[in-house]
């Protein structure tokens, strides 16, 4: 495994999983991404990334919450591990750190 670097999409997924709390399973994750950042991701693609995050030990998952509309099938609900939360914090701090180092005028330039 190539260290614990978080990709942009991975970071997004971790955040969404955190937001959704108990409701963090593929269908809801997909909807949330669509409504929050307007990106349409297929369930298959989500599955790949989510299982990669599991492999990296940032996420853990459990089956549960069978409902009528799923024909009684359980869903896989994702949850952040301590390592996952730590990784998110690291990224955030690193970013903040980097942002702080940017000279003032450069930012203005961007906004202009």
């Amino acid at each position, binding site marked *: 495994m190539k260290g614990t670097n978080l990709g942009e999409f991975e970071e997004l997924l971790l955040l969404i999983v955190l937001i959704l709390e108990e409701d963090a399973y593929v*269908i809801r994750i997909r909807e949330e991404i669509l409504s929050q950042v307007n990106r349409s991701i297929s*369930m*298959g693609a989500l*599955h*790949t990334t989510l299982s*990669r995050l599991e492999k990296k030990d940032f996420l853990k998952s459990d*089956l549960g919450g069978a*409902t009528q509309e*799923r024909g009684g099938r359980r869903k896989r609900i994702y949850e952040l591990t301590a390592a996952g939360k730590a990784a998110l914090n690291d990224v955030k701090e690193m970013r903040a750190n980097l942002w702080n180092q940017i000279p003032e005028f450069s930012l203005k330039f961007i906004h202009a």
Partner: protein
Amino acid sequence: MHKGNPIEPPAISLQLIRRLCKRDLVEELEGNLVEYHAQLQNSSFKKLKYWYQVFNYLRPSTLKVTNLKLHTMFNFNPILTFRNLLRHKSTSFINIFGFTLGLVASIFLYFYIYSELSYDSFHTEKDRIYRAIRVSGINGSPYNIGVTSGPFAKALLNDFPDDINTVTRAYPEDGLVSFGEKKFFEENLLFADANFFDFFSFPLAIGSPEDVLKDINSVVLTKAAAKKYFGEQDPMGEILTVDNRFEFIVSGVMDEFPAKSNLEFDMVFPIEIYERFEWFSNWWNNGLFTYVHISTPAQAQNVIDQLPGFMDKYFGDDFKASGRRVDLTLEPLNDIYFNNKTRFDFVRHGDIQSVLILALVAVSILFIACFNYVNLSIAQSFMRAKEVGVRKVLGVPRSRLITQFLGESLMILIFSILLSVGICQLLKPLFNSAFGLDVTLNWSDPNVIVFFLALIVTIIVTSGIYPAILLSSFKPVVVLKGSKLSSGRNVGLRKALVIVQFSISIFLIVATFLIAAQNNYLNSKDLGFDKEAIVTIDLNNSEIRSGLESFKERLLTNSNVRRVSTMSGEPGGYHDASGFIFSGVEGNTRMRTVFVDRDYFDLFGLEIVAGRGFSKDMSTDEENAMIFNEKAAKEIGLSPEEIIGKRVRMPGWDIENAPVIGFVKDFHFKSLRDDIEPMAIISGGRHRKIAVKVNTEDIGNTLLFIDEKYKEVSPNYPISYRFLDESLAQLYEDEKKQAKVFIAFSGISILLACLGIFGLAAYTAQQRQKELGIRKVLGATPQQIINLISKDFVILVAIATVIASPTVWYFIKNWLGNFAYRIELPDYWYTFLLGGIIAVVIALLTIIVKTYRAAVADPTQSIRNE
């Protein structure tokens, strides 16, 4: 497909996931898909969106088999296949073209045969529905009659309460239907009992089966009929007028029928409106169909066994009076379509024999295409021996080689299937119009998919396995050392295949000739009466019937109208049958009857051979004077002269003491499939047709004139007329279709067989390159070389002719058995020879084209070349 719950996603998608994905993921993935599918219900393109998600789930992280790194060189390799196909262009072309052509032919035939066999298949109760038909006989040979009369249904239900559950009746009629300004003469009206839609399963788009026909003035339309009268407007509750008098309110609309139906109708009315007419309750007034519903075949047999008693109960006195009986039997609904010998049957019939023949033709053509493939693969295999040797040396197990070769067959086949589906779609209109058929290509029909799969399996098994096994069996040491493979061991098989191919082709060619000869015979045979330039007009409404005399007079004012005659049925048309009792003669003779006016004989140019025709000057000739044909005299067993002057009684017709005044020469008043039957031509009676003999010059204007006069007499009804020669030709429509189909498909088969022989000749020429070179050096001429190569093939084709001839003889002899008047096979002995010669010539030409190059090639090239 199951459509119970619209929320459920297609079962096949879940199955796909279950099959291909890791087991511990399946529950979750399925759940997601089900939930997603439910959410999609109201969005557009939901199928597309759903399947997008399904296929997106098939990825390395979910699939069971993750080790996709296969040893491409050893397993099936499409690129290798593709290169092989490209390298042997002509062989690949012959293979793909051959398969495609064979497939196109068999796909069309499949759909045609399928549509024929699926007649009436959509009735849910089809296995429990029977039609009550009558059995009569004419002088010893029994025949079935499709129509029965009104009282049968109720009596059957009453007399067999334990066996017959329900009955229904359907009465086909025609009539003038109008809605406002829109007026059409409809030929397919049906009057039916109120339970008609409950009894059968004709689908209703609007209305419920139980009560659409409940009201006596209701009518149910097909979608097409509704559109014809009301356009886009809602037809429900609108009023249609029939024959300018009776009004009906639209109470329902039928959906498209899921398959074809032997009963053809555009509108259904309640039969109840006939109940008030006295004739309708007469047991002898036959004209409708009676259907019964019986739960088991055993019960049906039980009913059939008791039907003679049933008939005695209701007809006993009539039978005694007329001296002959009519019986009743039950005909399963499933059999009606192919029982085309039933008489007085106004439903659509098919011919099971021609369906079987076509199925045979389809299979034969597929065989030829498969044999081509086998032959060419075997021939080609020796060129690929080195490839096989190298692969084997590198450690490829034999099973992998077989997979590779089978994979190649499969690729060719799939490519051909895709191509042929496209071609079929393109050629459909052409096919339908050329053969006068109405075939629809329904690719989504599950049977079609099964058919294709079965086809692939059969073709792979028959034509892929053997070459694959043969190819993979080469010993690497032998092939790599360069020693010549003995190609001798497969020669026998290849020869046998060529012989079978050409036998089939020759069979089809000769059959085509003979069928064409028979058709020609039917069309050119002298029918014994004049059929040219005669127009027949239906007397199908009250206005023309009451104005008949004035119509005749008006017609004769035109000098281009030469004769006018009215009759109960024109030659080739409807002829009733009845019993005749002659004074001083024992017994009762059944004969065909036709009621005519006195111009009948002149109009059709019939020849009186004894006695006289109807005369204008004899008032006794006005009604019930009788003239018979010669066959009738033979049937009675007396000479015409002895019969003339006798008095005739027709039991059941109120005709007594009718004089026999003459005899007419036999003429073919029915189709040539049937023998000439005894016939009585009787003056007077109720007429159904007018025949008008016109001059051939200026025929367009004459027709306009006739139409104009018809309008004067019958202003409210449109004229319905036909040319007699055309309606006579229509009697042989089936034979014509058969001949066309045979010509087309025997052409295809010979083309395919030649393709195969072309490929083989090419291969032989190449294999024997060196030998031919040496022969040329030693002084052989190109001609001798061509002889050398073609000799083998010609012998094969000759053997094929010998095999095909007796088979086709037997087959055609059977087929000709359908016709009372037919060609004599021995007169056509030369067609058998001709078939063989045509096959030999075409095969020779093919071979010469291919071997010419080898024959004229410079021998130094072929010998020097290592």
